[in-house]
């Protein structure tokens, strides 16, 4: 698919809906944290929705992703059930992982959502294995590794680029660069830069794969870049490094739970909405309907989670091994 090629309105609205779903789900999550229903803090994805939604729109359920410490966007875009997701974050028995994972370690193999990760860059080497399994089985599947610009300095991530390349794996490296203008870490200014290049994607060259940088606040740019990279991977031509610049909206920064919906011109949802309306793919009423129906789903998920039982306390000590 080439720049400018047509994407059906239906697909566009599906992507838009995914973005709204992520935003809505995270908003509810923030509230549950403030209320103490969710017992921990976590990384949020607000402002980055276009990346997860755009990339995952190209994937099949039988493809896999590896995620990060801001996993909700990736997991929802990959199709995770909202009820089980919210239950997991609330630590409930009905969660994907019986409340034992929490936000940083959610696994939902049923849709290929194979792992949030509490270790920066920790999921990336494992994604090599998802891709390797597809390659060995010849099933045309692909795998996507999400990580941040900070993670791009982890040795394991860099090694993985080399290995993916020499094995020609069907894998897409998706780097979400949340320091598009000034280098920051966890929302804080840092007193030395952490990245030695303007574009993370320039590292692709040193690992023998194509790579480029895109505006991650423009979901159509994300979608098109991902489409090409996924095609490339499926056809056996190997990995690609995609860098998406993103702005994390206030509330994503460490220690803060505040969230100002209209804060930024970089908000990918407002932007996409305007675009969709401009091209006549969406009107006010449809938009309201999408938002309302997503709110409803999220509300149901929240209620489901709150109404779900705590795991049996002895579950704490079970399940270390399959064969115990």
């Amino acid at each position, binding site marked *: 698919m080439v720049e400018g090629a047509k994407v059906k309105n239906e697909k566009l609205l599906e992507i838009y809906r995914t973005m709204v779903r992520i935003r809505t789900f995270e908003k509810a999550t923030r509230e549950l944290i403030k209320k103490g229903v969710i017992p921990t803090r976590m990384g949020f994805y607000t402002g980055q929705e276009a990346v997860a939604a755009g990339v995952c729109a190209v994937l099949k359920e039988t493809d896999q992703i590896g995620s990060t410490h801001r996993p909700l966007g990736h997991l929802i875009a990959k199709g995770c059930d909202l009820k089980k997701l919210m239950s997991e974050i609330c*630590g409930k028995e009905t969660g994907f992982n019986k409340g034992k994972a929490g936000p940083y370690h959610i696994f939902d193999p049923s849709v290929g959502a194979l792992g949030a990760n509490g270790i920066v860059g920790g999921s990336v080497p494992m994604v090599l294995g998802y891709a390797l399994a597809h390659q060995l089985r010849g099933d045309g599947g692909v795998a996507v590794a999400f990580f941040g610009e900070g993670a791009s300095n982890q040795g394991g991530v860099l090694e993985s680029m080399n290995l993916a390349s020499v094995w020609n794996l069907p894998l897409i490296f998706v780097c979400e660069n949340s320091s598009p203008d000034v280098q920051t870490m966890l929302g804080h200014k840092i007193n030395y830069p952490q990245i030695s290049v303007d574009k993370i994607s320039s590292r692709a060259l040193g690992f023998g794969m194509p790579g480029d940088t895109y505006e991650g606040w423009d979901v159509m740019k994300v979608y098109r870049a991902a489409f090409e990279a996924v095609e490339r991977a499926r056809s056996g031509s190997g990995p690609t490094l995609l860098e998406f610049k993103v702005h994390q909206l206030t509330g994503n920064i460490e220690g803060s739970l505040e969230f100002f919906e209209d804060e930024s011109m970089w908000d990918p949802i407002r932007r996409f909405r305007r675009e969709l309306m401009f091209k006549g793919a969406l009107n006010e009423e449809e938009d309201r309907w999408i938002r309302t129906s997503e709110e409803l789903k999220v509300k149901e998920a929240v209620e489901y989670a709150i109404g779900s039982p705590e795991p049996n306390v002895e579950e704490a000590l079970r399940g270390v091994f399959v064969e115990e």
Partner: protein
Amino acid sequence: MDERPITFAEAINEALKQSMMKDPEVILLGENVTSSWRPTTKGLLEEFGRERVRDTPISETAFIGAGIGASILSMRPVVELMLVDFGLVAMDQILNQLAKTHYMSGGAVKTPLTIRASYGGGTSSGATHSESLYSLFAHMPGIKVVVPSNPFDAKGLLLSCIRNDDPEIFMEHRLLYDLKGHVPAEDYVLPLGEAKVVQEGDDVTVFTIGRMVHEAIQAAQELKDKVSVEVIDARTVVPLDEKALISSIEKTGRLVVVDEDYERCGFCAEVTAIAANKAFEYLKAPILRVASPNVPIPYNPTLEKRYLPNRDKIVSAIKSVARYA
């Protein structure tokens, strides 16, 4: 001595500040060490400047390595790990290089680096954000393992770590940062390898470390009319104060070892092994371990509570050994 109640975090901050003031070769490296909301490093950038207080990329192998190298050229780097769990990406630098270099070099070089790492469960942060792991470092010969339980020890032990010529990992339990205690304003050092009897007793020795010292004290308190409990804070895993352990068992004849790290091949196992070897003749009862079970740490707070060692588990362990005549 001018003593004021300050927090554990402030005590650490003070140790860093005083050592940086005294010695221009002390530098601080780590992720977000200049962030204003981190109480242990707050104000250091402003006072000592960007050269000596450096934010690093998320490259633990590289920046710990940088610390080791600088220490070999006789600087005194303090390197911060945001959480000890993250140190697993850098174990070659810590265990192969930092720990062994002095010995391997036949004494030709030293590696006076201090790694600071926060650790510990109880915040529902999941299996990779709640570990203790000091037994991994203790297993490898060549690195001292320091686990303070209170502000006074934190300051004196950290100053000791920074100034002595050996490498250390200095572990800070995240639930202790707000704990207040009296701390001298002056600069002082505490020796590494000296346990502290925090409560004297005659019937049962509870040998523990880090945050668990507080749980042990509460357990002893709860039992005070029934069992006379001696609580010992090891303060350092390496070196371990064997003498304090053995002489307490000589008195009590009963031992409970308490620790937040995983049980298998952990601190509790080591302390038990020393006791079963060197204090065997005094022992009247089986030695009990109260540690984190051999299970990853669950996220759900109720499960985590069930999982972690705590006062109640210590109480029942004490009761169980106290039964032996």
